[in-house]
């Protein structure tokens, strides 16, 4: 299962600290640039995880799998 937004947030935080440290050592190195690229990748992943969490509605998911149940029935006419 995909990581929870909370765990990804931790990863983002760590990656930022790591990037800042790496760049302190050598601001023009490939390592510094790659470190900030990792921050971007994790930030994007964290944002997607937040969006997915917002989108998933437990009742919607249940209804998709069990459309005949009373709570999920829809009437088209």
């Amino acid at each position: 299962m995909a990581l929870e937004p909370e765990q990804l947030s931790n990863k983002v935080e760590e990656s930022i600290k790591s990037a800042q440290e790496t760049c302190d050592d050598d601001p023009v190195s490939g390592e510094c640039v790659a470190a900030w690229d990792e921050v971007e990748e994790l930030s994007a992943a964290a944002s997607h995880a937040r969006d997915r969490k917002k989108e998933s509605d437990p009742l919607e998911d249940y209804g998709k799998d069990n459309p005949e149940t009373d709570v999920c029935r829809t009437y088209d006419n």
Partner: protein
Amino acid sequence: MRRLTSVFGGAAEPPKGGNPDSNTLISDTTTVICLDDYHSLDRTGRKEKGVTALDPRANDFDLMYEQVKAIKDGISVQKPIYNHVTGLLDPPELIKPPKILVIEGLHPMYDSRVRDLLDFSIYLDISNEVKFAWKIQRDMAERGHSLESIKASIEARKPDFEAYIDPQKQYADAVIEVLPTQLIPDDNEGKILRVRLIQKEGVKYFSPVYLFDEGSTISWIPCGRKLTCSYPGIKFFYGPESYKGNEVSVVEMDGQFDRLDELIYVESHLSNLSSKFYGEVTQQMLKHADFPGSNNGTGLFQTIVGLKIRDLFEQIVASRAETPVGATKA
């Protein structure tokens, strides 16, 4: 991507029962592949080599070409999965040839062999100011981030972005350029957007969208006696231009839609939309009113590009039916 796949038909979803971290989306008509799956270096590998994901050295273009060509030729492939959560390359997943294949990512037009396989290409060009504003919106909620870290990340990646990603613009059949508005002097909110749909001329099966009179130059403010808009209003522009050495036609929208009738009014004045019925653009925009950009040019032009691609696809299918390729019977 959701707007495009919705126009083609069906809702695109991750493949069921497979890797939950797959980047692939599949609908009845369309399969969307994320090109990060062709990373040759995973996160650790890139860190060790001191290379960003933007760098061609982190991507396997031979495999990308081989697999996109195979799918186009009707052959299923076992495509790698790049897991964005773990940063690792996961075991491959089966991709069966769909009616419409979409490849999206950092380098769809970088390799000339891959480029030549594309029937249509789009580049989403976000200006620096808008990119900064969007990343702030996205990342300020993250506890680790600050304005400085957001800025530092953008700046660090800029050289690679400008060297490897941005130059792909010249090859795109359509560029959607997102800029800050010109309607509000000294605007620093960044909420209103000016969006330009830059359409290449002379592309097979693609007839650019235009306003009023094809090939002429038009400035149009729809708000007035027939249509009331709230501040700062809406401004359109259409005209021929030269872009990266190509002849193009540009449709531009600055401002925001507040109401349904503004949208249908604008739609009724645009030509060559390739819509199947009057109001189809408006209907698609309403269907996805909760998606970002639903009240401005980004949503409008992405929807329109979806209709143009659908039309292109149908023309290609029709032309194949007329001239069947294959062995002749004796």
